[in-house]
């Protein structure tokens, strides 16, 4: 049996048994917000693109957070990192391992990104489950705006992701133009 056959046959011959469930990541993000460790959060990057359009393989989960006003501007993630230390989560390089998922936390780095987090879409992770946690996603037009305006973000891979969102009819060009004009002023 090949690895692909194994992976298509859930529960049989797994190479590595899963250590968690993705919903646990979402529950923990909600807990961080409820406990005031972060002000708000939204999922960005390739996972957000995957959930708006079609799934792609990606290495990590990008979670963009906003923090309370009193945070140290030189070390804004400190309260969050301390929380994970206290709760004995594993750090793997720049990621924190949550339920088997390497999560990269990024503090919203510009007014555009702060707005993207605040206006994120919130939906049920599993609509068939009444107990499903919610998932907060940066909206497609904001994803494209972030990828096209931030220095270093405009890579061929991100241009392809933007094209996927456009192809799916998910990008609001009027809003995008407005976001660009605001970002430039």
């Amino acid at each position, binding site marked *: 049996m*090949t*690895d*692909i056959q194994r*992976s*298509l046959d859930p529960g049989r011959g797994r190479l*590595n*048994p*899963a*250590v*968690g*469930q*993705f*919903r*646990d*990541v979402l529950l923990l993000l909600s807990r961080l917000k409820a406990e005031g460790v972060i002000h708000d959060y939204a999922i960005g990057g390739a*996972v957000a693109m*995957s*959930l*708006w*359009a*079609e*799934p*792609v*393989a*990606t*290495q990590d989960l990008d979670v963009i957070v906003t923090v309370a006003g009193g945070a140290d501007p030189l070390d804004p993630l400190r309260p969050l990192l301390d929380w994970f230390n206290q709760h004995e989560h594993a750090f793997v390089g720049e990621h924190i391992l949550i*339920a*088997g*998922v*390497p999560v990269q936390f990024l503090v919203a780095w510009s007014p555009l990104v702060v707005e993207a987090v605040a206006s994120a879409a919130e*939906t*049920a*992770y*599993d*609509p*068939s489950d009444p107990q*499903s946690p919610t*998932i907060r996603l940066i909206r497609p037009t904001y994803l494209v705006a972030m990828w096209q305006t931030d220095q270093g973000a405009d890579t061929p891979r991100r241009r392809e992701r933007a094209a996927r969102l456009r192809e*799916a009819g998910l990008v609001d060009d009027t809003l995008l133009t407005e976001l660009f004009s605001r970002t430039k002023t």
Partner: protein
Amino acid sequence: MKPATPFEGKAQWHAQQRQLPPREKIRILIELQRREAESNGIRKSLGRPTVSMKPWDTEA
């Protein structure tokens, strides 16, 4: 309804994929990670560059 052309059929399939609920998309994403990691073994055996990919230890 049967698509008029192969490309129309593909477009319909992609549209259906986009409509899947988040949990199902995460399941597919993890599946794609596993396939990418397996493909790396083949790439390596052929002396080709590999793609950095470690499947998540989680279930959707």
